[in-house]
């Protein structure tokens, strides 16, 4: 089981995107679980959610304290101590940023850092700066735990073809 924590801001589509990941996992015979941040979500406020993916039924329904993977939809959130708290040694961080991973202030235990300009991709492909679907493309590339094609099809069905294009672009932009 892989434990993922997503950090974003209200209005970035974090919850909807996470639902699509679980949907994709379930549709392809895997298991997934997402618990949204239990807050009063307002546009711009920091939000987060807990995503689990695995090959076996996922039983625990708890918050994620020691994520294998962090998905950060807004790089300014890296400044908040809660964002990277508990990252497993050697864990992966995916950040929506125009900068190189080496320029980001990531915790020392970070194993792999991936930066993707999800906002830029979203602006190009969708015409709006909502980075969620582009970040899903990056997530699919990095985890390998979700069937990327199915995920992209689900993105297209839910958000439209231009969002699929955004996800694909981000998928391609991540250098493994």
């Amino acid at each position: 089981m892989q434990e993922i924590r997503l950090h974003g801001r209200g209005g970035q589509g974090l919850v909807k995107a996470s639902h699509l990941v679980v949907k994709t996992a379930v549709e392809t015979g895997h298991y997934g679980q997402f618990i949204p941040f239990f807050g009063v979500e307002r546009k711009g406020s920091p939000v987060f959610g807990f995503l689990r993916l695995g090959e076996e039924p996922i039983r625990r329904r708890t918050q994620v304290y020691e994520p294998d993977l962090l998905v950060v939809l807004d790089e300014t959130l890296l400044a908040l101590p809660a964002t990277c708290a508990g990252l497993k040694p050697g864990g992966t961080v995916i950040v929506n940023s125009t900068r190189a991973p080496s320029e980001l202030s990531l915790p020392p235990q970070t194993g792999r850092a991936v930066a993707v300009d999800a906002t830029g991709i979203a602006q190009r492909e969708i015409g709006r700066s909502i980075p969620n679907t582009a970040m899903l493309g990056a997530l699919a590339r990095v985890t390998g735990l979700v069937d990327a094609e199915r995920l992209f099809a689900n993105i297209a069905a839910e958000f439209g073809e231009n969002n699929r294009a955004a996800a694909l672009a981000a998928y391609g932009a991540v250098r493994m």
Partner: protein
Amino acid sequence: MSEVKALTGNKCAALGAALCRPDLSAAYPITPQSSVVEQLADMVYSGELDARMVQVESEHSAMSVVQGAAAAGGRVFTATSAQGLALMFEPYFRMSTLRLPMVMAIATREMTSPETIWSGQQDAMSVREAGWIQCFCETNQEILDMILQGYMLTEDPRVLIPVNVCYDGFYSSHLVERVEIPSQAEADAFLPPYSLPAKLDPRTPQALDPMTPGELLMKYRRDHLESMRAALAVIDEVDAKFAAAFGRSYGGCVESYRMEGADLAIVTLGSACGAARDLVDELRAAGVRLGLVKLRFTRPFPAERVKEALAGVKGFAVVDRSVSFGWDAGPMYVETCAALGESLAGKAHFSAIGGLGGADISMAHLRETALRLAGLAAPGRAETLWLMD
């Protein structure tokens, strides 16, 4: 054919209710239950669900509207949380004492004050003397399944007591996971159409609830208590029928997980059972003989089943997501001790309280509980453990 989807607990409650072909639903939105109402509205407004939906101005009226419809011979549904449940208490108590069958989902939430909108089971626990059957669900699949089972249970002539299907606010209501949704044909084959006679019908003119003197009232109360007791067996029967139809059994009133040869047990209910299972596996692998007793029904309280499940252990801890004021403990701890009676004497035990107001009951909390239990030297009650930080 059933269909597999990723769904929230709230959506499962709404879909479960829809599969039971209710005549009417009435509900008032409240966090964290709101999406149940929205989902039902979607289905009714799209024509997918042929049911009346009454958009009331309060939970008090929600329960009153469904009460009227049930008295007029309808299958009805509603859902609420916390303050909503508190507001509807008056018609809520009356629903059970009128012996009108129905199913109500409760996305459990902590009671105010302090001001909160988050998870906790204090709402449902506070109304456990209101004459309803109450079951607590661990997974979203269980929520959907228990709504179907709930109608079969509540409409059974031996029971005729309304049923609460409770699940943790946010940790289940908003959690998305894999769920198998039975087809309408499968649901229809399992649950027959509503067939109980209407209490209020000009064709059979009668007074529903005349003024009743104490001696007669006591007969009705005794009957209610007897039906509660009878429900214990019906719950198991319905579970078996459900397993035959859908291949999923939940063990009736109580489920024991790895209790074979267990020295120690964690007793809990609701979503915390999932993490407890993981912990049992973890500690068993480390040589600690721990098991889990999952309380699925709190009303009727399955005293005998709990007693049997805990017969062989040296110690147990009950993890509650609510408190019992005046007992310095969680309510299910108090009731578990009461159920054990004399067999409590040789065991070490304590109450653990966690998950109030949206707080998590984490793996670490459960590990702390189990290790403390393992370390208790003497039988008897140990101090209440607060699962904080």
